[in-house]
């Protein structure tokens, strides 16, 4: 082999050797490009924010509060602008569905499970109106409760490190594989002065399983349908369980009962201890929340609870959430 050929081969090999960082850059860029195809800009009267293509049939998911009282909703995908029809929203998750008459859409790939803390969070939205803006961070916590515009939202993902800016509401949060793991909802900042000088330090997103649940129900029924007991439950401490003679992990305290709710009609009261729901012992409160939410038609159910340490069994009726 001639010297020139050897030099050329060496140069070629050197050019092919990429650092880990370069490989990472390429992979992230590829994922971001894919995500950008599924992110849209929503214009609801004067408000501008983000949304995500949910299905090729033209269903787009976004934040519900941004659409409140909007007279006209427009969805921009690249240069094209579509007038959208608002289907409905789930007030409990804050997810809304709008429909546009468009073809060739590329929906996001939805991750069926709730992600874990530490998951990489890739965020693509419309920061300050700039389409396809990308930022990255980490899922810093799951199952958070937040209060936004006087309404409580539960089971939220907490994101840290990503720059979530005005216009990013309804943006996509994806994991490193590019799967949708959350829909940007809101942001928190410690500075009450707010508007002039503070940047959000924590952002919150609706987790993918609840987004999928709300969107599927709205698309299937044309409006939101979910079950409702009308009570707030609190996990028991082990010391209380021990003194009540309950097995570890069993039972939940009733912290609040909504007026005229199915729970109130069944006679459930604050400080009762719910021990069984139907034939199942109450252990996993998240599973119970799903079970109640999945109810599609009013359904009778037997509740077993301790009232002043006396076991009671009543017939309750899970009704449909009035979405107030």
């Amino acid at each position, binding site marked *: 082999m001639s010297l020139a050929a050897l030099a050329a081969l060496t140069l070629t090999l050197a050019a092919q050797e990429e650092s880990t960082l370069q490989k990472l850059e390429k992979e992230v860029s590829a994922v971001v490009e894919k995500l950008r195809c599924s992110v849209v800009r929503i214009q609801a009267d004067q408000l501008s924010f983000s949304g995500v293509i949910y299905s090729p049939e033209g269903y787009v998911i976004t934040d519900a509060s941004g659409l409140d009282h909007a007279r006209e909703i427009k969805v921009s995908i690249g240069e094209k602008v579509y007038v959208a029809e608002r289907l409905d929203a789930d007030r409990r998750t804050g997810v809304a569905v709008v429909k546009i008459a468009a073809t060739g859409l590329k929906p996001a790939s939805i991750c069926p499970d709730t992600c874990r803390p530490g998951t990489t969070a890739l965020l693509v939205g419309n920061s300050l109106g700039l389409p396809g803006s990308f930022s990255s961070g980490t899922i810093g916590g799951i199952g958070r409760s937040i209060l936004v515009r006087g309404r409580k939202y539960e089971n939220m993902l907490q994101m840290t490190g990503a720059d979530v800016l005005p216009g990013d509401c309804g943006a996509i949060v994806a994991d490193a594989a590019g799967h949708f793991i959350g829909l940007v909802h809101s*942001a928190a900042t410690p500075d009450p002065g707010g508007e002039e000088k503070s940047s959000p330090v924590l952002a919150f997103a609706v987790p993918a399983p609840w987004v999928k649940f709300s969107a599927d129900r709205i698309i299937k029924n044309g409006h939101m349908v979910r079950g409702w007991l009308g009570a707030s439950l*609190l996990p028991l401490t082990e010391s209380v369980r021990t003194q009540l003679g309950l097995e570890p992990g069993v039972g939940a305290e009733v912290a609040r009962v909504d007026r005229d709710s199915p729970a109130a009609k069944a006679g459930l009261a604050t*400080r009762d201890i719910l021990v069984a729901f139907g034939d199942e012992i109450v252990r996993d409160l998240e599973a119970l929340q799903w079970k109640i939410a999945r109810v599609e038609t009013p359904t009778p159910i037997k509740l077993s609870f301790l009232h002043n340490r006396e076991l009671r069994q009543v017939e309750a009726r899970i009704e449909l959430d009035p979405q107030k």
Partner: protein
Amino acid sequence: MGCDEVRDLLALYAGGESYDHERAAVEIHVGVCAACARELDQYREARANLALLREGDAPPGTFKTIWAGVRAERFPARPARSPAWLDPALRYAAVAMVGVAIGVVAHFAQRKTVAADPGYATVAAPVLIPAPVQPATMPHVIVPHRKPGAAGLELDGTYYLPRVESLPAGREKDY
């Protein structure tokens, strides 16, 4: 209702001894105030532990006596159901607020006169803002910086991102 007033009511609320209007005020406040929500949780736990004593060694009626005494201890001289407008402190406060309002109006009227004088130059004094306040006072919507006349970012609309008002401390979830 502020934190101090609500804290007086938390024990009553946890014990189920509060009146409807007190209960409503507590529920609204703990929804937006993490500190009071935490305190309520502690009362609830204490209450739950106390409840276990009811069939224990204490003589009958002990438990009820403990909780019945809470209102008397918290509000020794205050009639529980007197309408708020009869409270003399509130009447004095209303008169004081009218006075302050007149003062503020007079102050701004005077400032306008001074500003109109072309020979006068005023320099804004630094404003000292107290330490961060409750998140509940945050604005509902974050809007981008828009300083009229300032060089730099020019935006063509209102970009939406709701602001979290509070991070409720309680672990209860709605079903």
